[in-house]
């Protein structure tokens, strides 16, 4: 049994949220190099990259796995020529295991897209670390997309360091995998650093989503916004753990956290643990979570326009996701996602 993705602060064991336990997940130790990786970047170092540790991450076993067995490592130092970086991992019958380490040193503004998708029905395995340093005054836009098939295991640890006046826009679109386990950490040391994290999850059948987002505000006037929109169908299950931690000294910092879960079946399960931790008085922190089924009136209104119930439901969900999808500047990727969401909602 694999026990991963611990919350930064423990709570009662009976609440079953301190970590996630997974049965029948094997962490592959012997893997061949991962071929179908397409990286678009002018300043890329592949494979000869040193792996450094994580402050949080998913747990020792998965970190060790990356340190010892990574089959794709990439380091990008963003410079002026490198506006649009794309990293596409396209799984196929021969390449089903990816143990992955990505480090991006953002010295200039850039857009980054990291996409995991599968062209195979075979069970895939991803254990990935994405580290980003947003240097002073830099604006960086990151999109991470999970479109793996629904028998796969997806483990992702994201760690970000934000320097003075940096602006990190992070978007996570999580649609795929049987077990999708995410950990996100933003260490906001620089004064006036800004982190906007927006995420979509969509669970159906027996999919499990375990989401653990942590932001630590250390610098003065730092600002974090976490917005998560999700929908659960069938027997899908989701744990959302979001932590905003105001560290002493982060005067005038602001933190907002919002999670909204649309329940589309009476068997779907949603657990949310939105934490606010605070050791500084001159701050503003808010969080809210809500869940429930879709508004009958809204559905009725759309149906009265001649659209059937299923389409009406899809319209409402897509409308909620739209705001986040709009952030994706690459039109091709955005359209691909819209189609995929549409397909998975059927």
């Amino acid at each position: 049994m694999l026990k991963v993705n611990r919350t930064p602060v423990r709570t009662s064991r009976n609440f079953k949220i301190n970590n996630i336990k997974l049965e029948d997940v094997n962490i592959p130790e012997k893997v061949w190099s991962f071929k179908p990786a397409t990286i678009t970047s002018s300043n890329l170092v592949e494979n000869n990259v040193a792996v450094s540790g994580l402050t949080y991450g998913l747990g020792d076993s998965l970190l060790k796995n990356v340190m010892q067995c990574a089959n794709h490592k990439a380091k990008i130092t963003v410079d002026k020529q490198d506006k649009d970086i794309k990293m596409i991992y396209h799984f196929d019958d021969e390449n089903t295991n990816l143990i992955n380490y990505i480090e991006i040193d953002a010295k200039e503004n850039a857009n980054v897209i990291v996409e995991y998708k599968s062209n195979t029905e075979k069970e895939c395995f991803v254990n990935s670390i994405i580290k980003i340093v947003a240097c002073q005054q830099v604006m960086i836009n990151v999109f991470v997309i999970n479109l793996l098939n629904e028998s796969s295991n997806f483990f992702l640890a994201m760690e970000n360091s934000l320097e003075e006046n940096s602006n990190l826009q992070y978007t996570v679109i999580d649609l795929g995998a049987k077990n999708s386990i995410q950990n996100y950490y933003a260490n906001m040391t620089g004064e006036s650093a800004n982190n906007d994290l927006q995420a979509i999850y969509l669970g159906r059948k027996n999919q499990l989503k375990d989401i653990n987002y942590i932001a630590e505000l250390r610098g003065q006037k730092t600002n974090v916004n976490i917005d998560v929109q999700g929908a659960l169908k069938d027997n899908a299950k989701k744990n959302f753990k979001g932590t905003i931690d105001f560290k002493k000294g982060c005067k005038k910092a602001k933190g907002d956290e919002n999670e909204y879960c649309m329940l589309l079946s009476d068997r779907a399960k949603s657990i949310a643990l939105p934490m606010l931790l605070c050791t500084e008085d001159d701050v503003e922190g808010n969080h809210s979570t809500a869940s429930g089924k879709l508004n009958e009136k809204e559905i009725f209104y759309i149906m009265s326009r001649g659209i059937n119930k299923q389409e009406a439901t899809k319209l409402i969900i897509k409308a909620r996701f739209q705001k986040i999808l709009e952030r994706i500047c690459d039109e091709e990727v955005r359209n691909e996602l819209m189609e995929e969401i549409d397909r998975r909602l059927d």
Partner: protein
Amino acid sequence: MSKIQVEDINRNIYDIKNEDEYAFKIQKGLNREIVEEISRQKNDPEWMKEIRLKALETYNSLELPTWGPDLSELKMDEIATYVKPKSKLNTSWDDVPEEIKNTFDTLGIPEAERKSLAGVGAQYDSEVVYHSMKEDLLKQGVIYTDMETAVREYPEIVKNYFMKCVPVNDHKFVALHAAVWSGGSFVYVPKGVKVDIPLQSYFRLNSPESGQFEHTLIIVDEGASLHFIEGCSAPKYNKVNLHAGCVELYVKDNAYLRYSTIENWSKNMMNLNTKKAIVGKNAQIDWVTGSFGSKVSMLYPMSILNGEGAKTEYTGITFAGKGQNLDTGFKVIHNAPNTSSVVNSKSISKEGGACTYRALVRIAENAKQSKCSVSCESLMLDDNSRSDTIPVNDIQTDEVEFSHEAKIGKISDKEIFYLMSRGLSEEDAKAMIVRGFAYPISKELPVEYAVEMNNLINMELKGAIG
């Protein structure tokens, strides 16, 4: 920018300590012999002794919680679990020994009596020493007595309900409680009886190294209603004190119970209390809770909404000052259709105090059309303090309306400015805002307790304007 100074409550009246005299003081530590000895001293019937011994086994098999505040200061081996006061059960105030009476006088018990509150079950150390009840309550068939008497005189009722709402294996301190419990109140309100005056009891600890393990069992039968008030205060000691009480509330179909409590333990107390309520069809329980005092508190009242249409409301305030770590919150389980819960929690931390709101909302699969709304607000009065919000929301079905929101921050400059523009001084403006912050809770409290709370939020503002 000047900081708001909130004065500590004047604890002098609570910290009066009578000379340490005991008729009986049990040896330190906890083992089978001690539990048997307690049981013998209490004249327990055989079934109660069995419950105690079984609980002791559970106690030994459970671990301390792996979360929450640090409990390493707690050395169970050094805590004498049971101290029996000299005075026996009294039926009239005149029979209460002078020394004990003096302490109660200072605490304001006769005051409450004069205000013709229904009954006062005051606990001095581990045994009930004073008890009075209004005639008309007796006529209505309301039973209000101490737990020991209830075990002897109403064994059938107690057997059915004792440790049934709070299972013995819930956590280590519940098991400890079940093994060594002593004192507490028992209330039974028969079907359809509306008790229109609140019942009150007052607890107090008065012995170094002694824990208090009072058990409160309240049964409000079908269609009945009751308001029960519990207040706590303890004198100050240097050694760590432990409080592991247990409150079990049964609110039957169509019944109503309002349970108000102010926990105001001295600043060396480890307050590890457990409170749960089982709520029947169309019944309602309202909790009003103020947590002050104590060094460490771990207190999470819980409503289990088992009947269709059951309701619960929780209104609570926590105030942590220097050296305090108060970990409190509310748990609710929606176990039936059409149930609803409203939670309103506030906390204030100052001078290095730590407040944690730790909570659970669980809406079970069968709880269709249930509603839950949670709101918590935290006020930080300086940057040495700590305020955490750790709420778990576990939603297992779709036909629900659930929302949770929380806020953390200091007093807003805009609000102060607005009030000042109306002619208030800065100090008055700040005081007004903090009082306003606590008002939703204080208005729910009975007047004596509201006065106590107002004392606590007695503000003093220092420093230059700016």
